[in-house]
């Protein structure tokens, strides 16, 4: 209880609140401008948060991402271009509502159900994470090995219909993670005599490159044009009480699905939104209305993507395994702030964890007034000249990547990974598995080698402890299932 009070005191300070409001405005802007994503918002925030104390740093990231995921719905609704990938699932639906003259209802639904979904995910985070952490205290290298493997498997098989492409980027990421001195023999691997590579490939510059620089490269080749549009957005909150009552089950189901998907490593808000929209359509009593401007799917998917965002923090905080690409960046920041994620953080510095929870609640509540203001200013934000913004963002990426280690070598990493990310995306390879591979490669190797030494090379040792065995069965089941689904798809095609 004392820790809770300390945490509230930490969050209620002027610098944290100021950081949150600044991050909120930044997140709303980045989310609402097509071509700038929520992940990019997080990556761009890193250089700034680097210079902040831990709590305001985390508060800024939580707030910016929550706002960006909601704000991505705005251009989707008004001009049929999703502001962030997480809004792509229901762009057609919300644009259809705008054409029917119901833009304010569509935006109201987006806002209100984002808040509800976010609060739902946060509640689960608050109750599940500490319980899970207590359980995780008994984990040894065997359990962690399976857990990491399970996380990597989820990242490959859940995120798309092309597991081979996911596997390719995963292995590439794991290989990049192997660079440097940090290995059992402290042998300089793949450094080619370069002293800058001894510490491994710097993760934060690589992530800024993969999520922001690649986006700018894509923009330079094919900028999205926004057609002129006129929209009078009226009373946003009118009729929302009725919506909540009418669609209470859909809200609950969307939030629960989003939470589950978000908590799985590798799958984030965008997958949650696609799945929730599909579920909503399949089970609806009025499924014929879907696609014609019907709010039911918006309710469910809008709640799902925001709940996924909060739930992604569960594995990130408890095990240090990110639930999505945003938390992958966040984990990097937590390490820089000496808030190393893992079950012990819940015991050693519970006040920090409670502060994170408090920030989540506050950020979701802040979304109501600030989101409303953003909707009102939407017409102006959408007219922001992106050909002026993109060069400035690129400059910011360069300075930001340099600022982390003050190392000119990191700029080469920035350029290299920017081009790699652009190339992979242009050839439909998913980026998330690569990020997870880079981040978790060391953890996988360390736990694998430790376990091999403990069991003296006997692979049976990996399944002797009950929890390790259960995790192993789960991982094998996941492999078998995805193999079976792939086979079924091929049969259906043939």
């Amino acid at each position: 209880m004392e820790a809770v009070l300390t945490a509230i005191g930490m969050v209620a300070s002027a610098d944290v609140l100021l950081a949150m409001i600044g991050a909120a405005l930044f997140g709303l802007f980045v989310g609402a401008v097509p071509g700038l994503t929520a992940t990019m918002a997080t990556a761009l925030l890193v250089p700034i948060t680097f210079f902040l104390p831990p709590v305001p740093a985390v508060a800024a990231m939580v707030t910016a991402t929550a706002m960006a995921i909601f704000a991505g719905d705005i251009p989707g609704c008004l001009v049929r271009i999703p502001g962030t990938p997480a809004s792509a699932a229901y762009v057609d639906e919300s644009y259809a509502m705008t054409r029917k003259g119901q833009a304010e209802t569509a935006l109201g639904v987006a806002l209100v159900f984002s808040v509800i979904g976010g609060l739902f995910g946060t509640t689960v985070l608050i109750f599940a994470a500490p319980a899970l952490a207590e359980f995780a205290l008994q984990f040894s290298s065997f359990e962690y090995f399976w857990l990491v493997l399970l996380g990597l498997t989820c990242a490959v098989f859940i995120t798309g219909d092309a597991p081979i492409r996911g596997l390719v980027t995963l292995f590439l990421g794991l290989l990049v993670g192997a660079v440097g001195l940090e290995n059992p023999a402290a042998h300089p691997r793949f450094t080619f005599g370069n002293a800058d590579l001894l510490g491994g490939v710097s993760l934060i510059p690589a992530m800024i490159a993969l999520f922001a620089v690649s986006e700018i490269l894509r923009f330079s080749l094919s900028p999205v044009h926004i057609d002129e549009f006129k929209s009078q957005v009226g009373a946003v909150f009118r009729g929302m009480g009725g919506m909540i009552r009418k669609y209470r089950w859909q809200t609950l189901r969307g939030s629960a699905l989003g939470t589950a998907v978000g908590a799985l490593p590798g799958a984030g808000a965008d997958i949650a939104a696609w799945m929730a929209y599909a579920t909503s359509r399949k089970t609806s009593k009025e499924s014929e209305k879907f696609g014609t401007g019907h709010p039911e799917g918006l309710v469910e998917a809008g709640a799902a993507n925001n709940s996924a965002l909060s739930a992604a923090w569960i594995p990130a905080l408890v095990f240090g395994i990110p639930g999505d690409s945003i938390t992958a960046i966040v984990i990097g920041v937590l390490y820089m702030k000496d808030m190393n994620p893992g079950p012990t953080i819940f015991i050693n510095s519970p006040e920090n964890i409670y502060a994170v929870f408090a920030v989540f609640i506050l950020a979701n509540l802040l979304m109501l007034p600030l989101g409303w203001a953003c909707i009102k200013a939407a017409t102006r934000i959408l007219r922001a000249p992106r050909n002026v913004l993109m060069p400035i963002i690129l400059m910011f990426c360069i300075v930001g990547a340099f600022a982390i280690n003050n190392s000119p070598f990191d700029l080469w990493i920035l350029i290299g990974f920017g081009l790699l990310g652009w190339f992979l995306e242009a050839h439909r390879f998913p980026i998330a598995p690569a990020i997870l591979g880079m981040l978790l490669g060391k953890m996988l190797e360390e736990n694998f080698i430790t376990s091999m030494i403990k069991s003296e090379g006997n692979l049976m040792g990996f399944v002797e402890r009950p929890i390790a065995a259960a995790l192993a069965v789960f991982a094998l089941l996941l492999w078998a299932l995805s193999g079976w689904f792939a086979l079924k798809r091929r049969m259906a095609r043939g």
Partner: protein
Amino acid sequence: MRLNDAVIGAVLLVLSLAVLWHVKDFPAIPGQPYGAALYPTVVSAGLAVTSILLIVQGLRSGEPMFSVQVAQGGRLIAFGVTVGSMLFYVLFVDQLGFIVCATLMLAALLWSYGVKRSLIAPVAIAATLVIHTGFFKVLKVPLPWGLLESIAW
């Protein structure tokens, strides 16, 4: 430009074989069979297998090995300037300094993205000064002064 999956798979196969060949000489820890080579061996073996699957998939798809979409000339220039300006920055920032480099880089980017001529210089200079003040003065990031060393503020 688009490459067939088979081409990408072939490149990755070569990469994974090169890694396998490279790691086999890694020193072992005395008295312990699991050293620095084990993990990269497993990973690159995995990469080799998936590359072969990718090659098979690419050959079966029947898509051309290389296909070039005719992009508008202006777009290619914009892409070239984006990559080129980053390289320019990394190579010359120490000699020329941040302010000179960033202004030139931003001006080139703004021009290639089709921003109105009259806006290019003011935006490039203003953005450079704002970023410089934010990172150099407020966050104390040691951005190099280069040519402007003598009038550093």
